[in-house]
């Protein structure tokens, strides 16, 4: 960016995970056959009226409280009017000038520095259906998504690099998943993001004219689209041109942002208060109860992990990256009685396996007690650490219990000194010249002898016992 600075603000839409839709009793579920989760209300048939789903308020409230926002005791719904085939009423029920909450912030850590991004507002609205443009130029519409409850989280323009935007989105994603209010799936569209971005010369007081970038289907996509648009704007300014206020659509495959066709963007939504719904009233007892019942938030949990279990901050941050993982770790720490080792297991093997298998912690097949049992086998030296890791892999592969794998597949470690000494003597006999070199001072060959002994016992020798024996034999 050189002598330019960018100003980025994000609008994030998160689909709330309520049982039913925002204003009717249709199930709120993704992936059903098209147009099967619909009723006269969400289809906007003549004569229907919306009725607010209180669960929507409850989930929005959790999120608002978690970012430290002020939830207004009263807010109202408005109609946002525009025509589109996936908008059956010809208007979207949203909130305009009296949003559900205002204020709050998200704390980021980007490239080692900390930054706080202010949140301007969080408001409630309903989702539209999904238009799918066909190759022959026609458009088909799936109304299942109509009326799915959404929160729109509008940030202040506090981000200045695509990396910060990415970090912000990661944080929002972690938070909504942590709170169980949204599954955060950008590919399926349950979490969506539009960006407003402008550039200006460093030190200049006035911001540039912002453009809006839409249609990004991943957090990586947002980062790339912003990088692209910032570069494009700098290019225009450098070339003596001016930026025009416009909306661009990100093309993920071509990696370019194209201006939206004029017709698709409407300038005047003619907002006015939704007469079919009464005011949204949040009784203070209700807010207090949700606040009291709110789960421990990621930041607090991370700090507690450091203090309570003596973990390094980096480790604690990884473990608090997702609520399920943090829960698994804490259960393992308690069950095993060894929080640091538990942290190593979760941070290392558990997360590696989740990543390899592309699944989340909820579907991790090894129970906390089985893993604690495995840790105990290492503690009592029945298994070597590497042997335990192999057993874990086999448990995942076969779904069998650790005991049966250890017994039937011969992972048990031996600490039998006579047995190990026998093997050690064979190794020393096998490598006479190395023994001479060792005795003449090349002490770093010691590891070689241990390694060979371990290899010869197929990893089942207790390395500690093997070291002691070798030490004695070589002295």
């Amino acid at each position, binding site marked *: 960016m050189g002598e330019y600075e960018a100003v980025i603000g994000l609008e994030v839409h998160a689909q709330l995970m309520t049982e039913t839709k925002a204003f009717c009793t249709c199930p709120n579920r993704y992936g059903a056959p098209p147009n099967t989760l619909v009723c006269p209300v969400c289809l906007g048939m003549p004569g229907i009226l919306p009725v607010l789903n209180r669960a929507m308020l409850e989930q929005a409230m959790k999120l608002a409280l978690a970012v430290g926002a002020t939830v207004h005791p009263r807010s109202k719904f408005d109609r946002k009017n525009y*025509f589109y085939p996936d908008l*059956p009423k010809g*208007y979207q029920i949203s909130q305009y000038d009296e949003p559900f909450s205002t204020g709050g912030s998200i704390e980021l850590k980007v490239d080692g520095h900390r930054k706080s991004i202010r949140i301007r507002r969080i408001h409630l609205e309903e989702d539209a259906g999904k238009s799918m443009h066909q190759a022959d130029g026609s458009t088909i519409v799936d109304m299942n998504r109509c009326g799915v409850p959404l929160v729109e989280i509008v940030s202040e323009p506090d981000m200045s690099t695509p990396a910060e935007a990415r970090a912000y989105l990661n944080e929002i994603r972690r938070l909504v998943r942590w709170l169980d209010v949204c599954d955060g799936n950008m590919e399926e569209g349950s979490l969506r993001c539009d960006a407003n971005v402008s550039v200006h010369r460093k030190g200049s007081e006035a911001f540039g004219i912002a453009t809006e970038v839409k249609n990004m289907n991943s957090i990586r996509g947002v980062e790339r689209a912003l990088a692209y648009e910032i570069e494009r704007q700098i290019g225009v300014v450098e070339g003596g041109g001016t930026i025009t206020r416009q909306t661009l659509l990100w093309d993920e495959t071509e990696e370019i942002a194209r201006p939206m066709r004029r017709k698709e963007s409407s300038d005047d939504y003619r*907002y*006015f208060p939704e007469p079919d719904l009464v005011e949204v009233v949040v009784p203070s007892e209700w807010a207090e109860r949700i606040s009291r019942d709110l789960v421990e938030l990621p930041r607090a949990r991370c700090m507690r992990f450091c203090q309570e279990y003596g973990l390094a901050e980096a480790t604690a941050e990884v473990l608090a990256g997702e609520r399920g993982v943090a829960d698994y770790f804490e259960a393992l720490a308690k069950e095993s009685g060894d929080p640091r080792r538990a942290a190593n297991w979760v941070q290392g093997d558990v997360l590696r396996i989740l990543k390899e298998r592309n699944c989340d912690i909820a579907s991790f097949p090894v129970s906390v007690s089985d893993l604690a049992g495995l840790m105990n086998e290492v503690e009592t030296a029945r298994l070597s650490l590497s042997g335990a890791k192999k057993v874990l892999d086999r448990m995942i592969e076969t779904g069998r219990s650790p005991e049966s794998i250890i017994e039937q597949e011969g992972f048990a470690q031996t600490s039998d000194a006579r047995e190990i000494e026998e093997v050690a003597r064979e190794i020393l006999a096998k490598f006479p010249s190395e023994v001479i070199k060792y005795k003449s001072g090349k002490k770093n060959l010691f590891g070689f002898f241990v390694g060979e002994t371990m290899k010869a016992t197929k990893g089942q020798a207790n390395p500690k016992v093997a070291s002691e024996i070798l030490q004695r034999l070589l002295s």
Partner: protein
Amino acid sequence: MTLKIPPHQHLKNHPEELPSAVETCLQAIEQAKPLNAFVHLLADRARHKAVEVAQATGQGEELPLRGMILAVKDNIAIEGTSLSCASRILKDFKSLFTATAVARLEKAGAIIIGKTNLDEFAMGSSCENTIFGPTHHPLDWERVPGGSSGGSAVAVAAGLVHAALGSDTGGSVRQPAAFCGVVGLKPTYGRVSRYGLVAFGSSLDQIAPFATNCQDAFAVLCIMGGKDEHDSTSAAYPMSYPTEGLKPLGEKLRIGLPKEYLEEGLQAEIAEVVLQVARGLEKAGHDLVEISLPYSKLAVGVYYILATAEASSNLARYDGARYGFREHSAESLQDIYTHSRAGGFGREVRRRIMLGTYVLSAGYYDAYYKKAQRVRRLVLGDFLDAFGKVDVILAPTTPTTAFKIGEKIDDPLAMYLSDVYTTPANLAGIPAVSVPAGKDTKRLPIGVQIMGPHFSDELILQVGCDIERLHGRI
């Protein structure tokens, strides 16, 4: 000879006669076809229902509206049947569900005989803006029955049904009730669920009954009213229908006469009838109090801003994309919208959509919509002040008696002024009833209006009963 259906009280006691009464009703409607009150008959449905009700009573079921035959305006939903709103855009549309009000009436033993004519989407005061052709005044076929619920008013006035449902957004039930000489009640906003009523001006609309007397209007109100989980704006006001019906007024009331409602623009004969009624009520022991409702003068203007604003949004769903009329020559999405809406909506509906879109547009919102909302609160404030001094308000329902077909159709402003005395109650959300109280020199009915505080529906109907008694109707 004109066929007459037996009174519903008779049918209530002789439910076995109900199937034959339904046939009589259908024949009477057939005979009265030239009035053009009905646009769709639900003959088979009504026949089945008649048998069902007759049998259910045999089993001792409590059905408070047993034997009541009703007509329903064709902007109120009944599952599987027409919901045309007298518009080309919904001409062949059938509803997927039944309005709460209708479902409750049927559950109580009422029989719905058919759907009635209206001004398209309830926009009009004459029942002329309709794809089905105008409905005629039963006493003078050259004249309009009033609107928009003209078909329902005529069905009751011509004795084709015992009662009927209309919808009142700015006077659409009271004005035709006054023109046709029947009772028309606009309930307190929220008293009757709007679920199933095709929205025009959502913050003003109420499903509203027509009947030949206040007692019957009360019965229909009690049965169809009350909280509905499908309508968040419906009030949790307790509703039950007392077996003895509407009780006579026990107490002496303070009756307000708003001077602004009796000034210029009011047909002299109507002013005279209002004053006659006032004197009659005074003679019966009530107190008359002159009051002032200065902001009511602004009501028509405010009404046409707010109702059209809401309508422009409520009618956006009729776009040719999913159901209803679509202009098939249209190729692009934009053309589907513009051609379908231009061809599907009539002139008056298009005019109001444009007006409503305009008042909500950026740059005009504050000057029109927002200001109108403020004045709406002032209109309400007037009433709240008045109800500190009086119990009910007596006023004319309409500035004139029924006018001629075609007389105002090309003069929207004159047409809009037909609502001058009725729109204030909608803006304030208060109940108001029009009760027949006399005739002009052309023998056309004159109605007087009684307005009361929120949820005083029963009280104003009791006053209505007294007025009926004054005129020897009971």
